[in-house]
């Protein structure tokens, strides 16, 4: 990992299997924005989240936002990958919900 980017990983025990679905991508890696990629992780009971961000030192806030997201959806067997360029917590939450809504469509 480069000195400039910070990588964060979260592994949360899920409740509702996401099942199989085509990968979903929402958002764009632009200033104050992020992209969220959702993929099935069949066989896993976890919701795993991998974040790469250019804004270092916000681990505590990421942790809170990710736990919040997980409390809302409690998905299992899902892999969340994020490329972030300094999005605010509210934008991150909205993108995560948007991505889940895309799976359900």
């Amino acid at each position, binding site marked *: *990992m*480069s*000195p*400039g*980017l910070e990588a964060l990983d979260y592994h949360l025990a899920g409740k509702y299997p996401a099942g199989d679905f085509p*990968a979903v*991508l929402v958002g*764009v*890696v*632009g200033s104050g*924005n992020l*992209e969220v*990629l959702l*993929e099935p992780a069949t066989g896993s009971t976890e919701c795993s989240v991998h974040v*790469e*961000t*250019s804004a270092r030192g916000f681990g505590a806030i990421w942790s809170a936002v990710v736990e919040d997201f997980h409390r809302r959806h409690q998905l299992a067997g899902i892999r969340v*990958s994020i*490329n*972030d*360029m300094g999005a605010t917590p509210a934008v991150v939450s909205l993108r995560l919900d948007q991505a889940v809504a895309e799976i359900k469509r």
Partner: protein
Amino acid sequence: MNISYSECSARERIALLLDEGSFHEWLPPSERVTSPHLAQLGVPSAFDDGVAIGRATLAGRPVFVAAQEGEFMGGGVGEVHGAKLVGLFRRALRERPDAVLLLAESGGVRLHEANAGLIAVSEVMRALLDLRAAGIPTIVLIGGANGCFGGMGIVARCADRIVMSDIGRLAMSGPEVIEASNGVDEFDSRDRALVWRTTGGKHRWLSGDCDLLVADELAAFRAAAIASLDAAAPVTLAGLEDEHQLLSERLHLLDAPVDGDEAIALWTRLGVPAPQRVPELDPGELTRP
């Protein structure tokens, strides 16, 4: 409802411009073919390196398509981004779709990737010219907020056909580059009216650098793309000589001193009706000589 082309992301443009659900992506985000350079510089990568490529149908006909995402690094062409475009064009040479569409939105070479980006853009040009030589129509659509500049501006002008909206911009050096190198007296990059008078879709259409001028609507771009499907324009010596003639004549149109705005003077001398009113007219209201 009219959907603004400029406000859509690259992926939204693909979804709405082509036949519904027909897009099949190659190297999708889940493949994670990302830039080998950006992370070293502390810049986040994008899972698709800022460009989506694949095949689809347009009005039922098979086409290949690439769409650049202007919000990611200004649509800059890095090593992987360029390689995806080249790969798409070379595959088109083999499989011969009815056309290749490039939804361009780019500031040109992604400077972070230096020579790798420069080489990538030159390879894109060569691959696109190979398509033209093979008689496969290449259609470039320009209507994103970031315009089409630098090396991608050259790529666009290598294509058979260019479709632009009045919001779209096409040029080599961008406004800020000109100002930085030649001074604000030469070009004030913050003068938006000046920027659009000299690089915008209306100017490009009036001066013959773009083939179709449309409103900033997805449906209008779709209709223009369909109308361009059979627009292969083979590169011939006679065609090149005509182009040189046109450029030379245009250059000399400004030999006589200009009193006032140079763009309006050029339109006047090109014979554009009511040149003063061009900036305020809708694309459909314009006529070119």
